């Protein structure tokens, strides 16, 4: 019996520590600042344990029965603590309140355990042995729990199921105690029933842990993730919230279906509608097919070549019904030809010429992408522009990355082109900028294809007006041997986020 008794001390101690760790970890996960969270959780918890120990003196009779009830309460509160915390974070404003309430409740109950146990067994051992044995196993349990927690429990089970598992252990100790201390108990049967009920509830909890987590996560993240894939080139994520579909490439927002028409109408029409009789159009990037959708509104365009690096991207936007609905199956159009290739070498190798060229790459966040914003690249592209043609470059935000925007404009200018920068407001992006460029002066178009939701012929000249806070500032051009833009872009966005 002695060994079994002390094993339960160890288990009980492990449970106590696990609840504390779970509360600390959950708070750190959900609100961050882990040093603060762990400090305050541990402090509050230890203090509550002290309260529990102090309260233990008021428990006089039926100690075993009370111990069993404490274990059951602990099993329920501790076991459901992480599910409760997660749901509280997802659905209420009072996460902190629930957090410290749970910490104090479990702390008090854990604080009661050891004094009660010591008193229960004091008749069997000398005081000296009780202290030595109980505390030894208590601390051993703590060590076991603290090692199990990060190595096995969190990675294998997750926080919700770990807590429930240890709730089961508490309930198990309670049930076991009805046998272990049977001689000191009156209503064994009803206690055992209570134990079994708690065990059942916790088991159901474990079986349903996934749903609990999912319900909470749905509320924690703004939108449902409906597609997520690491391709050879990038991480593609699609999210949906009600009717809003969003595409993220390497965590950078590419469009929101609610306002992408503003972006893509502005990207395509100011330039394309100003080209007389455009027949051949090139899109570099733009694997989502949204720029292509706009270009297909011109019946005189005979052939569109779309060059996008990632075959998974063009495949996704050719097949996924929600996406083909958005791009109106543009990638499947007979006038459009998809080429999956790296843009710069492709531009070097092609001999074709085009009346309009759309350059719609991700922002220049690294040196690899930076190559696609250089004078060398624009010179190479410009060789494929017909004499009446224009090219347009998505040029990041003239508001948030003003230096970068004007650097891109200067780079196009130094590539021997006349430049016509403009900007537009896209709610999900903010102020966004484009640079039109060509070898002749630009005259805004008098008419546009029917069915546009944002652009009008009268509105186009307004896009070319820059208010003082976005106005031109002199910038060096971006070149392969300097790559000033990448560093500039990094600085620009750093300034925003701090």
């Amino acid at each position: 019996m002695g060994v079994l008794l002390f094993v339960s001390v160890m288990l009980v101690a492990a449970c106590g520590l696990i609840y504390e760790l779970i509360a600390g970890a959950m708070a750190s996960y959900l609100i961050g600042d882990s040093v603060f969270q762990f400090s305050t959780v541990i402090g509050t918890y230890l203090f509550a344990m002290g309260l529990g120990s102090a309260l233990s003196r008021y428990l006089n009779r039926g100690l075993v029965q009370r111990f069993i009830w404490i274990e059951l309460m602990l099993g329920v509160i501790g076991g459901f603590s992480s599910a409760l915390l997660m749901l509280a974070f997802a659905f209420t404003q009072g996460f902190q309140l629930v957090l410290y309430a749970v910490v104090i409740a479990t702390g008090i109950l854990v604080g009661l355990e050891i004094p009660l146990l010591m008193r229960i067994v004091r008749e069997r051992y000398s005081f000296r042995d009780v202290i030595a044995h109980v505390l030894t196993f208590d601390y051993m349990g703590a060590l076991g729990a603290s090692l199990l927690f990060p190595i096995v429990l969190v990675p294998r089970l997750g926080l919700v199921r770990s807590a429930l598992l240890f709730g089961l252990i508490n309930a198990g100790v309670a049930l076991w105690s009805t046998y272990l201390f049977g001689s000191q108990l009156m209503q064994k049967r009803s206690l055992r029933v209570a134990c079994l009920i708690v065990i059942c509830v916790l088991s159901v909890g474990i079986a349903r842990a996934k749903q609990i987590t999912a319900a909470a996560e749905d509320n924690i993240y703004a939108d449902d993730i409906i597609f997520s894939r690491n391709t050879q080139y990038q991480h593609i994520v699609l999210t949906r919230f009600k009717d809003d579909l969003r595409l993220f490439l390497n965590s950078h927002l590419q469009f929101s279906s609610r306002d992408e028409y503003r972006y893509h109408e502005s990207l395509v029409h100011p330039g394309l509608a100003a080209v007389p009789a455009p027949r051949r159009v090139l899109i570099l990037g733009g694997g989502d097919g949204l720029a292509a959708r706009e270009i297909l509104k011109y019946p005189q365009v005979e052939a569109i070549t779309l060059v996008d690096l990632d075959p998974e991207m063009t495949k996704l936007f050719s097949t996924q019904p929600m996406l083909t609905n958005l791009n109106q199956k543009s990638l499947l159009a007979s006038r459009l030809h998809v080429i999956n290739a790296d843009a710069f070498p492709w531009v070097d190798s092609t001999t074709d010429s085009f009346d309009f060229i759309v350059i719609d790459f991700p922002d220049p966040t690294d040196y690899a992408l930076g190559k696609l914003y250089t004078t060398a690249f624009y010179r190479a592209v410009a060789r494929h522009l017909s004499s009446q043609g224009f090219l347009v470059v998505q040029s990041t935000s003239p508001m948030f990355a003003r230096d970068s925007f004007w650097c891109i404009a200067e780079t196009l200018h130094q590539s021997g082109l006349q430049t016509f920068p403009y900007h537009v407001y896209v709610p999900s992006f903010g102020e966004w900028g484009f640079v039109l460029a060509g070898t002749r002066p630009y005259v805004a178009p008098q008419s546009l294809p029917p069915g546009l939701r944002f652009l009008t012929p009268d509105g186009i000249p307004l896009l070319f007006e820059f208010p003082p806070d976005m106005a031109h500032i002199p910038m060096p051009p971006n070149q392969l041997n300097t790559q000033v833009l990448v560093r500039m872009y990094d600085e620009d966005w750093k300034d925003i986020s701090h």
Partner: protein
Amino acid sequence: MKIGRRKFLSVGSAALLGLTLKADRRIEGSFVNESAAAGHLLRDRASFTSPQKIEKFSIVIVGGGISGLSAAWRLRKRGFKDFVVLEMNSQAGGNARWGENEITAYPWAAHYVPVPGPRATYVRELFTDLGVLKDGRWEERNLVFAPQERLFLYGRWQDSLEPAVGLTQKDREQFQRLQDVLAKYRATGEFTIPLELGLTGKFAELDQISFADWLASRGFDSRALNWYMNYACRDDYGALTRDTSAWAGIHYFASREMEELGPLTWPEGNGWITRRLLERVGENVRTGQMVNKIIQSNRGVTVLAGDTEYRADFVIFAAPTFLAPYLIDGFPKPRNFVYSPWLTANLTLEQLPESRGAEPTWDTVFMDSPTLGYVDATHQSVRTFGQRTVWTFYWALADGTPAQNRQFLLEKDWNYWKEAILQDLERVHTDIRRCVSRMDVMRMGHAMIRPSIGAILSEDRANLKRKHGRVVFANSDLSGISIFEEAQYHGIDAAQIVLGHVSGHPS
């Protein structure tokens, strides 16, 4: 998820051992472009097959490196076609040879040319011809892309190779003082590229001491500064500062303007220049033609190579000059011609190793390594994505005597050098063995002329610059330093000298 018991056990136990499933790759490779055996035939005065046929040219150019090809380029530019270039190796280019695999072209030796200063008129003329210099502007694609270089020191990266982190006040003061001293030497106009244009012998005393002694005598004892000076001498001369003439050490820094632009470079390094030259003169070039004898007479010169006896009016000797005594009867062994042994390796990488947070660069150097680090051949590519690449690894065997190191180079097998190179890279890229799939190693016993003490202003070197009967010398070793600009200068110079003597040809 169901995990089978066996899988669980294997993954589980591997995880416990920290091995997981990241196995090292098998590395293929061999020695390539071996030339020592052929060269030793000359050294050992082996008997060669007697010629079967006779061919006549006005000019025979011995050696198809940059010097020989530049001579050819000048001859053809002057409309002169009656000549042949004889190259011993199966590929022309010498120290500007290149290789190519399915990933990229890559250099075998020299891999860049600094943007030439105003006095390097021949280099500017060539680059104008090749489209590198257009309307006074350097072609962007030929300038090294950013980020250019990084140095690993004290467990971290810095950009640029001159140590800048972990410097004490004293180090900083010495770097600044050295810069000031070098600026004064630069201002004298004595240190030029090509070297011959500025050389008057004004600072002859600098050629009489080692660069190390010169630094010490001026109180430059900073460890970081001395590392950097040693790195520079190993990189350009294959020698340590203690084996380098102070004149040459100063020339390295004082001959170039502080340029804003990085050097000119290409995926295959200076092999790109070789290719462009071969497009222009290739029909005059014969490879696999080892010259074994050059005989002068009153009426002309006879050059024996393989089964052919070439009869010419003049020979441009563009091969390394140390070969001359073995080819020309009675030609004295030139004194003060010391050559540095080198090793280069091209490593095929299936993926880039961990770089501890630093962006990949063109040139990577580890401080306190005996090697010179590596250059990434795909850095100069306009591709945006590409996992696989080729690194060219450079190692000048500078510690010890050249003879010892040549011996060592020949003695050790491929496996030895493969391990030595991987261990050097593992200082920083701990996962390199998971990335490399192939390593080809090229050993060069006489890779480049070394400007040892007394070499620059030596009498033998000055004598060689004159015409020797019907033979005109043209190798870069005439300058005492082995750089592209010198090789090209002497090649063109030799061509012009010979054109002046070829009967009936207006020069």
